[in-house]
């Protein structure tokens, strides 16, 4: 099976700085790939390149067999930005229905997406009156509504309680089992263990691309947080 996403020698500048330095990676279809790395390492930048809203200097990004951002992809790729990006002055339901209309699916799909993120009871409330975690879930629902083939989720579980987080991860795995490809960035190491694959990036370079088991074996520790720190420190020592 070919890869859902192939990134080749991607170079991205933001402002005057080079943020991604010739990054190459692939995402297997139908799996949950975790994207981990320190703050400012380029996770969001890479995701923006995947959905085609980032100006890239050189290199290529191929998504589901097409160039990232091409018109044919826009109904097939869902993107959840790091900060909730929904209309605060609309109700939860109005937001979901608008995005449903954009993806060409009906109001029933909007209601189903709200049920998926546990917001059925809040459907009539204005987004501005919700908690931060609830707003994040509205944002997530607006991407789930189109039933995309690739879901790009930038820290979707920030601010969620453990129960909801576990449920959402179950949802992600159910989507992957049905063939959806997911890439999820996170700072929470306990979530890293739930991914099928892990991409670790640091300062715009790929540090490691492996399964959680391989990462544990390679660093000789059971704890992914410790494994991650070991990798980052080794990289810093070789750089020094």
């Amino acid at each position, binding site marked *: 099976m070919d890869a859902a996403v192939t990134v080749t020698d991607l170079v991205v500048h933001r402002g005057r700085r080079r943020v991604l330095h010739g990054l190459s990676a692939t995402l297997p279809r139908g799996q949950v790939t975790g994207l981990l790395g320190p703050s400012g390492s380029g996770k969001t930048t890479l995701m923006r390149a995947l959905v085609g809203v980032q*100006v890239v200097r050189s290199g290529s990004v191929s998504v589901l067999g097409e160039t990232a*951002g091409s018109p044919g992809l826009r109904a097939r790729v869902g993107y959840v930005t790091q900060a909730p990006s929904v*209309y605060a*002055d609309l109700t939860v339901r109005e937001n979901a229905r608008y995005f449903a209309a954009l993806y*060409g699916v009906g109001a029933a799909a909007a209601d189903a997406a709200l049920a*998926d993120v546990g917001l059925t009871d809040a459907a009539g409330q*204005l987004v501005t009156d919700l908690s931060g975690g609830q707003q994040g879930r509205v944002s997530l629902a607006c991407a789930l509504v*189109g039933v995309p083939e690739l879901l790009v989720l930038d820290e979707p579980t920030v601010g969620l309680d453990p129960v909801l987080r576990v449920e*959402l991860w179950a*949802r992600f795995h159910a989507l992957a089992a049905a063939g959806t490809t997911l890439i999820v960035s996170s700072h929470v190491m306990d979530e890293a263990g739930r991914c099928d694959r892990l991409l670790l990036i640091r300062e715009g370079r790929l540090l490691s691309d492996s399964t959680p088991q391989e990462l544990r074996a390679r660093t000789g520790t059971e704890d992914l947080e410790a494994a991650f720190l070991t990798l980052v420190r080794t990289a810093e020592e070789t750089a020094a």
Partner: protein
Amino acid sequence: MTAATLPRRTAPAAPHPPGGLRLTAATAARVLRQLRHDHRTVAMMLVLPSALLGLLYLLWADLPTVPGQPSTFDRVGLTMLGIFPFVVMFLVTSIAMLRERASGTLERLLTTPLSRPALLLGYGLAFGLAAAAQAVVTVSVATIGYDLDVAGPVYLVVLIAVVDAVLGVALGLLASAFARSEFQAVQFMPVIVLPQFFLCGLLVPREQMAGWLQAVSDVLPLTYAVEALQEVGASAGASGTMWVDVAVVAGAALLALGAAAATLRRRTS
């Protein structure tokens, strides 16, 4: 929520890919819903132009008029019916678009099947409809309450006001591309509006302007909107000049929308 046990929805995302028109309509409906939740803005949109027009009416109410000529209020008040919607919709649109940018929803919309022209036309349609409601209220209050004399049919005044509002929307969308903050966006208003207002022929008749000012005035769309209103004010039927003027304003609006679509970048750094 029972995430794992929910029946899977694996239907293809878009059995019938949504057409541009449907997406424009959906976007216009969304913008109007946002407006509807903001009661105070709606109230101000509907009432403010009438109130300001009332002030002008009182200002000139007791002044003598020259026989055989339209009173000052008839001339200025009628022109104002075209200027209010232009100014209001310019401001509202540029702020709305800036908010869309700042909240991240614009970046998100650009990853969906919604095309940039469909997005901008959605804004034009939504605020055009809002302007129609505003124009109906203002024109009714002006003609019934303030005895504004219009020789031609009143619905033409409403039509010109709406086309003017769409021009304001289009220029607002274009200006918002060059504004980094709300402070900047608000200051684009005098830059775009005041020169057009000074040169439109209301303050000084266009024939009496210096030649080069008249030439500048010739290429400013508000000039044609004001001329169209004065045509309706002066003659009983719709004159050919008026239709040409309306077409010029509509063409300028389309041009500005096209420029706004061209300056709206999908990829940013």
